[in-house]
Structure formats: structure tokens, C-alpha cells
């Protein structure tokens, strides 16, 4: 299984390379990619520098142009696709049927991967994208149980990539308007969820509060760890109870599933986190490289090492990890 790692900056890209990523995915510095955060992503010079390093080491570069194009900004998405083709990326990761159509017609040799934002959770949807746009790989949304991943992979016309580690989207990717409902900024169109500019922290006698566009997402008592107010991970009131009604602050971690994912025939595992620090990328890549190598050397004797688990827990939201939807009981 190939290890696909995120880079939101040149230092992160270098860290991923150093620790043995097989492929690194990046986005351009605009709303054409789903991690359009202030100060994030590589500028032209950094990208050139990164490509040279990746080429020298014989690894792969993927570029995500994976938001839906806004009609008035279509030229931006077109340019992003053309630019990815010009610099010779190993794959373009896209979701919008319009963008995929443009890429497949204009650049027939460009290797296309269906983004998780394409929200394809079954073999028929994958066939749609394969037959029309010739996608050569698809990233599955984090909503399928392991048994469902197996079923989809068995009937998929293309190799499958799955998320292995990182922030957990509780909703099917590409099928969530919660952020735009509160803030007006849509993950699908603007590439940002719970945008930083809408976040406000308030400290008062009642404790620390996090708000998103004025809406209270959570309130923390003295000494309680506070997390970024991603709105699906807030504490809300339902039927008179205060709890994480949608999801706790937690990260997906599937080290335990490596043998199953390999048996299913998953071709690549993806680390989430282009918005995270180079140190995060460095450590997560190191652990996953070690784990995948250990599995390759001795599949039958594979066991998750404690120090891997500890290293990843320290990098997770709320220091918690979960198997997420892969494990049916989570659903």
C-alpha cells in the first residue's frame, strides 16, 4: 500500500519526503482546493522547489483541485488544472464533474484521481466517474464501514485509496453544508470548514467559550482542554442533555486495520492534514512508514507498536483516536 502524505508548506513537504512518503499531495494557494486556509499552501517558487526534491527522490506529487468551481471563477479552476498538467504532476485530485471533464479532455494524459469530495461511496458512482473521465483511482469518503469498503473495492472499476489518519469528518465529504449554514463559507465552494475568521474565543467568569460567527460551539470549564471550534465537534443541547451531539473532538487512526486494508486490496492510505504543522507531518509519516514497512516484512506477525500509538495519540484532536466509521459500532 502506498503512503500518501499531506503538505501545506515546503517544510511539511520536506518532512514527508524525509520520513518516507510515497506520494505527497498539495494544493494551490486559492479556493480551488479544499484546504484553502490563510497562510497555507505552496507558492510558485516553493512548489518548483518541492517538485525538484520529489523528483530527485523518485516519489510522486499529487495536486488537489478538489472544490466545486464557482461559475464566475471558472477560469481559476481551468488555470489550476492546466498548471498541474504543465508541472507534470503524477495525479490531479478532483471532484467537480465540470473540472474532471475539462481535465480529461484538455489533458488526456493527466492521471486523474477522484477526490474524497466527489462523495462516491459505491461502485456505481465510481463507474460513472471512471467511464466518463477515465479516473484511475478514487479516494473513498470516511463514512464506510470496513465491510462496506471491502464490498466497494471488490466491485470498483478503479483502485481505491482510503483515509488512514487525521481529522475525522463526521459527515460524508462533499455532502455537508453545516459550515456555510453558520458562516456563509462552504467547504464545497470555498475549500474551508469553520473558517478561522469566523472564530471568536471569549474568556469570562463562566469559563472559556468558542464561537463561530457568534454561535456558541462549546464552553470549557477551568482546566478543560479546548479544541478548534469545528462545528460538528461542539457540545450542544439535545433532548435536554448537553453533549457532543455529533462527534467528540477525536482523530481517525487505522493502524490496527493495516492487515485488513491490505487484504481488501486498498492501493493507498492517505494521511489527512495539509493544514497541520511540518512537525505533525514528520511524526505521522514516520509512524505510518514504520508500520507499513513492518507489515510488508512480516504480514502474519504484524502488531501495532505501543510507541506508534502513543506518538499518534499525541498528535490527535483531544488526544483521542477512533476507528471511525470503519468500525460499525461508531456509526
Amino acid at each position: 500500500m502506498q503512503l500518501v502524505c499531506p503538505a501545506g508548506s515546503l517544510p511539511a513537504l520536506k518532512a514527508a519526503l524525509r520520513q518516507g512518503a510515497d506520494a505527497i499531495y498539495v494544493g494551490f494557494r486559492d479556493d480551488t482546493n479544499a484546504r484553502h486556509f490563510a497562510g497555507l499552501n505552496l507558492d510558485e517558487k516553493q512548489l518548483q522547489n518541492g517538485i525538484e526534491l520529489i523528483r530527485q527522490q523518485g516519489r510522486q506529487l499529487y495536486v488537489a483541485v478538489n472544490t466545486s468551481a464557482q461559475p464566475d471563477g471558472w477560469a481559476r479552476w481551468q488555470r489550476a488544472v492546466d498548471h498541474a498538467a504543465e508541472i507534470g504532476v503524477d495525479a490531479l485530485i478532483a471532484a467537480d464533474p465540470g473540472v474532471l471533464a475539462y481535465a480529461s479532455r484538455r489533458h488526456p494524459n493527466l492521471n486523474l484521481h477522484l477526490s474524497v469530495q466527489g462523495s462516491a461511496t459505491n461502485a456505481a458512482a465510481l463507474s460513472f466517474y471512471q467511464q466518463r473521465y477515465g479516473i484511475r483511482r478514487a479516494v473513498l469518503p470516511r463514512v464506510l464501514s470496513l465491510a462496506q469498503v471491502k464490498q466497494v473495492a471488490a466491485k470498483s472499476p478503479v483502485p481505491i485509496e482510503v483515509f488512514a489518519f487525521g481529522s475525522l469528518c463526521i459527515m460524508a465529504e462533499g455532502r455537508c453544508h453545516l459550515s456555510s449554514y453558520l458562516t456563509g463559507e462552504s467547504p464545497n465552494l470555498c475549500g474551508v470548514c469553520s473558517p478561522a475568521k469566523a472564530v471568536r474565543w471569549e474568556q469570562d467568569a463562566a469559563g472559556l467559550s468558542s464561537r463561530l460567527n457568534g454561535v456558541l460551539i462549546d464552553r470549557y470549564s477551568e482546566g478543560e482542554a479546548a479544541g478548534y471550534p469545528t462545528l460538528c465537534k461542539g457540545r450542544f443541547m439535545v433532548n435536554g442533555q448537553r453533549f457532543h451531539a455529533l462527534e467528540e473532538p477525536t482523530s481517525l487512526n487505522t493502524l490496527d486495520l493495516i492487515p485488513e486494508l491490505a487484504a481488501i486490496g486498498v492501493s493507498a492510505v492517505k494521511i489527512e492534514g495539509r493544514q497541520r504543522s511540518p512537525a505533525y507531518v514528520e511524526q505521522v509519516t514516520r509512524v505510518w512508514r514504520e508500520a507499513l514497512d513492518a507489515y510488508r516484512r512480516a504480514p502474519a506477525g504484524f502488531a501495532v507498536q505501543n510507541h506508534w500509538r502513543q506518538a499518534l495519540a499525541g498528535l490527535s484532536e483531544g488526544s483521542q483516536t477512533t476507528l471511525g466509521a470503519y468500525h460499525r459500532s461508531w456509526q
Partner: protein
Amino acid sequence: MQLSLGPVLFYWDRNTLMDFYAQMATQPLDVIYLGETVCSKRRALSLDDWLGLAREMREASGAEIVLSGLALVEAASELSSLKRLCENGEIRVEANDMAAVHFLAERDRPFVAGPALNLYNGHALAELATCGMDRWVPPVECSGALIRSALNQLEELGLQRPQLEVFAYGHLPLAYSARCFTARAENRPKDDCEFCCLNYPEGIALHSQEGEALFTLNGIQTLSASVSNLLADYDQLAASGADILRLSPRAQGMDEVIAAFDAVRKGGLPPLAVDGCNGYWHGRPGMLRAEEAGLC
């Protein structure tokens, strides 16, 4: 302007559904969407029951009947029932997942592209138009300006506009998840949910800790807490080329909602303001009303 009744998003039992549709058959509706779009475990009506109801409703109401497909299709069993629905050969289908688009395009069946498909620009619409889409219900987060631009872009590509149907009334369907939030709220595992959605004919309200109504939990679907209402925006909807306004079923008072929209489309003056939100249509956070957003 035509009026449509969207699919029932909540889980109502068989009798409630039958009573509701008997009442709806007498309403001034041009299009009625039937079928289960949220959860495949909801089986108050089977596919054959829905087809039977579709035939009855066609006779009784004179409206065009459309069967809506599931939005989040994961299990193999869900995919095969979606395939059966798409291959019914008789009743038009609303696709809410690309799997449905795939099945319908294979069979050359014209279809409605539902609000759960991510179609945001003319190029994406062109792709679906070549697959047989002849009506577009934009994602609920689209503004009027985006919808107009997307349709203009499609025309610049030399393609004919599909009919435009705008989600004009009801709790907004905002998100789909693998997790069932209704079961979670009742501390039940999803696989042993005991159909607890039946206890909540209009979902479960989710409030912030300050008591602000934010969302509505409806099984694996999250809806807005506020009811979106675009009646006061009627003139702009008409000017934007909307052919159909979708009214999404609620547990109570749909006849009054339909009457209010019907009066306006027959020439009555739209109200200056209504309860509920309309932020998305105005390019603002969906939860707002245009007045709050400082637009009026």
C-alpha cells in the same frame, strides 16, 4: 410558476404517510416527489408500495409524480434497490447520488438532479445534461446569483437550460453521515435503532448551550433548525428563471404553506417578510434572514 412537494425527509409511519398524501392529492401542486431519500432502514413503504402510491397519486392529483432516490448509498443492498428504482420504467426519478445518475444515463432516462448532487456551475450541469438531466434542483447552499451564473454559463456552452426547481420552503437538508444522530441522542447503536426516528415526526431539535436553535437531527441527516422560506423573495425567484418552487413536507400545516405560495403565484402580493431563514438565497450564511444580514 409551478409548485412541487418534496420527498418527506422524516420517518413517518405508513398510516401517517397515507393520510398525508391523501390530503396532498387535493392540493394545487404540479409535481409531487415520493420515496425515501435519507435512510434505507425506513421501510414504512417498500419500493413497490411507493410505485403503487405513485400511480394512485398520478390519478388522484393530476400532478407529475417523481420518485426520489437515496442520497447516501453505501451498502450493496442500498445500491441494488436504487438500481431497481431507476429501472422502474414508468415513473421519473430524482437522482441524489451519482450512482443513480449512472443507472439512469445507462438506460437513457431523463431525470431530475436532486439537491444532494454537487452541481454548482455550468460545466458540471453540461455533464449531467448529456446524461439526461432535464431539471436541476441546486444544492440548498447556492445563492440566487450563483444559480443565475451557472445557468448562463450552461447556455454559453450552447446547451439548453434544464428546468430550475428551487428549494423554497422547509427545513434545509444540510448534511449526511454514516452515523445516526437520532440513535446517538437516544444512546442506541445504529444497528439496533428500533426505528426511533418514528418518535420524532419533525426530527430532534439541536440547540447551542445558549438555547439558540441550530440544527435538526433526522437519522443520518442533519437539517437546519430554522425553516427556510423564500416566499418574500418570490419576485426575485421568478426573475432568476425558477420554473418550480419546492415545498418540503413538515408534520403540520402544509396545506396552509401551499395556499400561501399558491396565492402569490396567482398574482397575490408576496409578503414583505416571513418567519424563517433565507440567507443562502441572498449569498449569506443560510441561518440568517435577509433583513438580519442587512440586505433589506
